[in-house]
C-alpha cells in the first residue's frame, strides 16, 4: 500500500472519528437554534433564537448558574491554595509521605466518581450537611486539586531547578525565592490548571446530583432535573450551547496567551 494512500485512509478515518466525537456538541447547536416547540429533524420551522431567549430569561436557570459559578469559583480558589503548595512540595522536597500524598491526589482523580459520590452522600447525611453549600464547595475542591497538582508538577519540571538554587546563593530566602522566581515561572501552568479545575467543577453532574440536595441546585443538576421531568428541554440545550461556546472561546484565548496544549 503506497504511502499516500495509507495516509489518506488514516486521514479519512481520523476525520470520521473526529466528527463522531464532536457530533453531540454540533447537534447541541443545531437544537439550540431550532424554532420548534420540541426537537424534530428535519427542522420544521427553521431557525430562531427563541430558546436562547427562553434560557436567558429563565429564573431557575439563572439561579442555578449563580450557584454553579459561586461553588466552582470557591472550589477553584481552595483547590489552587491546596494544590500549588502540594505540587511544589512533591517536586522540590524529599520527605516521608511524599509518595503517599502523590498517590492519594492522583487516586482521587482516577477513582470512579459515582462510588465517591455515594460515599459522600452517606458521609454528608451522617453529618447532616447534605445539601449544604459548604459541603458542595469542599467536595468540589477535591475535583480541582488533582488537576492543579498535575499541571503545576508539569510546569515545575519545565523550570531548571538550579534557578531556585541560584536565587538562594544570591541571598534570597526560600520564601522570597518562591514568590519572585518560582511563581512567575509557573504562573501560566497555575492559571491554566485553575481554568480546568473551574470547568471540571462547573460541569460536574455526578457528585452534585448526589449531594446538592434541593436548595443548592447547580447548573448541570438543573439540566438533569428538567430532563427527567419533561424529556428534551430545548431551553437547557440552548444554555448548554452557550456554555460550550464560552468554554471554546476561553480555551482559544488561553492557548493564545499560555499555549496550554503542551501541558496535556
Amino acid at each position, binding site marked *: 500500500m503506497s504511502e499516500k494512500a495509507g495516509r489518506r485512509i488514516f486521514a479519512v478515518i481520523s476525520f470520521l472519528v473526529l466528527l463522531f466525537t464532536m457530533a453531540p456538541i454540533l447537534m447541541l447547536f443545531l437544537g439550540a437554534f431550532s424554532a420548534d416547540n420540541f426537537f424534530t429533524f428535519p427542522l420544521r420551522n427553521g431557525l430562531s433564537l427563541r430558546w436562547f431567549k427562553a434560557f436567558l430569561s429563565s429564573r431557575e436557570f439563572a439561579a442555578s448558574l449563580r450557584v454553579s459559578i459561586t461553588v466552582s469559583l470557591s472550589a477553584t480558589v481552595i483547590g489552587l491554595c491546596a494544590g500549588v503548595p502540594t505540587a511544589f512540595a512533591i517536586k522540590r522536597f524529599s520527605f516521608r509521605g511524599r509518595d503517599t500524598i502523590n498517590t492519594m491526589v492522583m487516586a482521587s482523580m482516577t477513582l470512579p466518581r459515582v462510588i465517591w459520590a455515594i460515599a459522600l452522600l452517606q458521609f454528608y447525611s451522617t453529618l447532616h450537611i447534605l445539601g449544604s453549600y459548604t459541603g458542595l464547595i469542599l467536595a468540589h475542591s477535591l475535583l480541582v486539586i488533582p488537576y492543579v497538582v498535575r499541571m503545576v508538577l508539569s510546569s515545575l519540571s519545565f523550570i531548571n531547578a*538550579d534557578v531556585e*538554587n*541560584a*536565587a538562594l*546563593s544570591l*541571598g*534570597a*530566602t*526560600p520564601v522570597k525565592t518562591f514568590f519572585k522566581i518560582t511563581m*512567575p515561572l509557573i504562573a501560566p501552568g497555575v492559571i491554566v490548571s485553575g481554568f480546568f479545575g473551574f470547568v471540571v467543577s462547573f460541569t460536574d453532574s455526578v457528585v452534585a446530583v448526589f449531594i446538592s440536595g434541593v436548595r443548592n441546585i447547580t447548573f448541570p443538576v438543573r439540566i438533569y432535573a428538567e430532563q427527567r421531568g419533561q424529556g428534551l428541554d430545548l431551553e437547557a440545550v440552548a444554555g448548554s450551547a452557550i456554555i460550550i461556546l464560552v468554554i471554546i472561546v476561553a480555551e482559544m484565548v488561553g492557548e493564545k496567551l499560555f499555549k496550554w496544549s503542551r501541558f496535556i
Partner: protein
Amino acid sequence: MGSAHENYALELRGIEKSFGSNRVLRNVDLTIGEGEFIVLLGPSGCGKTTLLRAVSGLLEPDAGKVILRGRDITRLPTNKRDMGIVFQSYALFPHMTVKENVAFGLKMRKTPQQEIDQKVEEGLRRVHLEGYGPRKITQMSGGQQQRVALARALVLNPSLLLMDEPLSNLDAKLRASVRVEIAQIQRQLGITTIMVTHDQVEAMTMADRIILLNEGVVQQDARPVDIYERPANQFVAGFVGSPSINFIMVEKKGGRVRLPELGLELPLEQFLPVLKPEDGITGLDDGQYVLGMRPEHVEIDGGDGMAAGEAQIQYVERLGSETLIHAVGGEKELVLLLPGLITSIKSRTNITLSFRRGRGHLFHGESGIRVTGQL
C-alpha cells in the same frame, strides 16, 4: 591537621556523603588559601559536583565540617553563605532581563538603586557585556549567558566563587577563549575560586592547584605541574595527559627485569635509568610493577634511551602541530607523540622503540601507588 592557625579561606574536614548505599564522598579533607584557583577534577560520578554542592550548602553532608574563613558554616543555609555560584546550566532567571539578573543579589541585600546601577554596569563591563543590561535572557547566546551568570555571581564580591563545569555547554572554540577570560578575571579580582570540571585541559591551564577525585576519594592534591610530572598513582597518571600515558607491565625477579608484553628482558641496572631521578629509586623488591611512559617520551631509534624492542606502526594521526603514532610492540599497543608534521613515517613499517631516560613513572603493581625512595 590541627596545625598552626593558618588563615585558610576554606577548610573541609572529613566530608562524608552517601546516596542510599552509594558512598559518594569518603572522608574528604581539603584546605584552600585566599585567592587560590582550585579545580576539582575527575571522571563523572567521582563526587566532585557533590563536594561543590556541599560547600555551597545546597547539599548537607552526612558528616564533616565546612569552615569558611574560620567560621563553621556546615549548618548554615545557602542564602546566608557568602558564595557566588555559576551553575553548569547557568540558571539565569528567564523572566528577567540581564540587568535584573545581575542586580538580583544586590536587591536581596536592599542595596540603594543608584549603587545597584553602578555595580551592575561595572560587573557587566568586567565580562565584556557593557550595554547588554536591558536585553532579555532568551535573546542571549550561550557564551553571553555564561558571562551573565559569572557577572551575577561576582557582583556581590563573595568570599568564594564556585563554578560547576562552566565551560561544558560551550562549543570547543569558545571554550578556549572563555577559559582564558575566566582565569584573567579571577586573577584581577583575587577571589578564591573552586571550579569543577572533567576536562583535564581546563584543569591544567586554569588551576593553581588541582584536586583529583575518583570514587569519592582524593587521589592527589597538587599543582598542575606536579600532577603531570609526579602523579601519585596510576589513576592520576592515566587521567591527566592527552594522549593517555602508556602503561607497561614490569616484573622484577632477582637481578633481572622483564617486560612481558614487549617480550623484553634486561638487567636491573639498565632499567633503573629510565625512571625519574627525583624519585630516588636505587633498588626494587621482587614483584609486579607498572611502568608509565608518556607518549612524548617514547621515541623511535633513540640514542641513549632504553631500548624497548621492535614495534609495527598500525596507524598515524597527523594533527598538524604534532603527530601521533599508534604502534604495537610484542602484544602491547603504544602511542607515540612526535612534534611537528611528519610525513615520512608510514603505517605497516617497523620501528625500534626507545624509552627516554629519566622520564619513566613506576607504580606498584597491586596498589597502583607511585614507587619512591630506597628499597
